[in-house]
């Protein structure tokens, strides 16, 4: 996880006569525990080993490259969103509409392409702008009303959920929008958003998107001014405001980014399957939050990492595919994720106490 790790400075020589000002020494183990993604990484290794050992498929598919294609595919769609939800969570906010937004955006794409016969690329641009608008509305409502984003985006969730079905029924009389592969620009758009690479294993394009988005988010969070502001508005919005950080603007941009990530996932689903169901994405918002929290994000904001969230998504991918390969009833998947979440929150809370406590160190 070298991308997110700050270089460890060599201890400076202690000055004489400053022994009354003890800055607590930070040991290597504490320093590692302070990395938000470390717990998730250890967890991922453990979950991988578990499912590799209970694998009931002939030839141990789970630990083969074909199996890797399977769990990477499952993880990538969660991962793209988990990174966005994690960055938003670091900024101190939730987006419960993140799951249903993938459906809304995919359906809008279907409507533009099939109903209005628009060029696929033009439709993609329109969908991204639409998502940015919804994100801006979410963010502005949260900032203006000062209500918890949990409530605001829960409302958005339900508004969109109803619209997804209602509008689709009006247009198609079904609960599905087809995306015609005859539409202008479909082939080139699908090659970017919904095709595969690395034959014969055929990894999904989404995997590349996921890795790229994780890398960019990590760079922004750890290396840029805006990243510094994200941690600050989540950690202590009043303190951030006092030193001149534009708190409202930062939060609104984060909501817009989350909604646009949902648009990318929706576009991917619609192009890959040449159509999209009205139920797409409903309920997935919780998987994103689980991935972010398992990856070390604090629900209270100000702490976490994009790489951690991606590892969280990977764990979900392991579990989803591993349970099928093990031949277990797939309902245990949810129970398994619940247990993982419990353990992760326990570990996170411990870490946060270590990182934030001023006592016993002075």
């Amino acid at each position, binding site marked *: 996880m070298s991308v997110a790790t700050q270089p460890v400075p060599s201890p*400076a020589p202690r000055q004489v006569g*400053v022994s009354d*000002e003890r*800055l607590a020494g930070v040991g290597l183990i504490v320093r590692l525990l302070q990395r938000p993604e470390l717990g998730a990484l250890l967890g991922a290794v453990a979950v991988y080993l578990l499912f590799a050992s209970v694998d009931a498929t002939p030839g141990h598919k789970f630990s083969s490259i074909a199996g890797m294609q399977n769990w990477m595919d499952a993880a990538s769609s969660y991962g793209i969103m988990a990174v966005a939800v994690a960055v938003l969570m670091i900024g101190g906010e939730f987006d419960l509409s993140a799951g249903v937004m993938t459906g809304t955006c995919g359906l809008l794409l279907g409507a533009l392409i099939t109903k209005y016969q628009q060029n696929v690329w033009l439709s993609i641009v329109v969908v991204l702008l639409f998502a940015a608008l919804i994100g801006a509305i979410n963010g502005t409502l949260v900032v203006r009303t000062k209500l918890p984003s949990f409530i605001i985006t829960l409302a958005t969730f339900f508004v969109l959920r109803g619209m997804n079905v209602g509008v689709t029924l009006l247009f198609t009389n079904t609960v599905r929008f087809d995306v015609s592969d005859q539409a202008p620009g479909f082939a080139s758009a699908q090659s970017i958003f919904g095709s595969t690479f690395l034959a014969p294993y055929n990894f999904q394009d989404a995997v590349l998107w996921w890795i790229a988005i994780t890398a960019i988010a990590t760079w922004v969070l750890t290396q840029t001014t805006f990243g510094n502001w994200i*941690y*600050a508005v989540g950690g202590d919005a009043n*303190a951030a405001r006092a*030193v001149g950080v534009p708190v409202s603007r930062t939060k609104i941009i984060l909501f817009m980014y989350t909604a646009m990530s949902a648009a990318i996932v929706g576009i991917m689903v619609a192009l890959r399957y040449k159509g999209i169901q009205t139920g797409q994405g409903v309920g997935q918002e919780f998987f994103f939050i689980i991935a972010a929290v398992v990856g070390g994000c604090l629900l209270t904001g100000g702490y976490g990492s994009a790489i951690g969230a991606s590892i969280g998504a990977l764990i979900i991918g392991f579990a989803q595919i591993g349970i099928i390969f093990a031949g277990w009833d797939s309902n245990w998947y949810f129970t398994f994720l619940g247990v993982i979440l419990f353990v992760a929150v326990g570990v996170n809370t411990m870490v946060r106490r270590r*990182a934030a406590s*001023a006592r016993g160190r002075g």
Partner: protein
Amino acid sequence: MSDSPNGVPLLEVRHVGKYFGSVIALKDISMQVHAGEVTCVLGDNGAGKSTLIKILSGVHPHDEGELLLDGKPVRFNGPREARAAGISVVFQDLATVPLMSIWRNFFLGSEPTVGVGPARKLDAGFAKKVIRDEMRKMGIDVRDPNQPVGTLSGGERQAVAIARAVYFGAKVLILDEPTSALGVKQSGIVLKYVVQARERGLGVILITHNPHHAYPVGDRFVLLNRGRLMGSYSKHETSLDQLTKMMAGGEELERLSKELEQMATDTETREVARELREEAR
């Protein structure tokens, strides 16, 4: 006690008054802040200390009188202008984010960057070097600038906030009750930083309700009571006892101590009452 080069006070408050509707928050307040001096503003709760800070730091405009910076009348439209003019406030909550590292907190809102366009990134190396240098000037050896601020003690956090204000060009440093939430030892450490800031040529305004903290470090003492100036003294004109007495309102304290003495049933309370009367005398 060096004055400004031209002998004019760094910051001068002349007959300033402030009204909130019909409430007189401050009336006829005058004080001077000189470079290399600590001006203590003393007052009990509700004396008008907060209103005075807010006027000096540009949060509220004043309704009467004038504010002179380097001898020139000024009027600030907001805290940003006051900060740009060199007046910095270190608030009680210190405006630091506990979970963020020392260096990220120090430069929050004024981040140094290298590179251009999309490759522009935080200059972490520069930031960490500045932290080490600035904190060393205050006698603190920062071994790990990546350490979260939340792991620092109250005094150390205060030091980070002061160092930040000084580094970003404060000429007048306003410290709002810096010792109120601290224990005895940590308070002593913070007072040491106050002296250091003074020695580096800053004009320091120390807001406090504790004369025991103000007297050892202060050069001038301004006493506020119910929004009015109760007195203004330089150090040789007053003593700790006198300050304490004036702050509590001598007669009132004497009456309280008598009442307490009458009520006292155990020796300990009687002892407290006796001490209180000593102070009031």
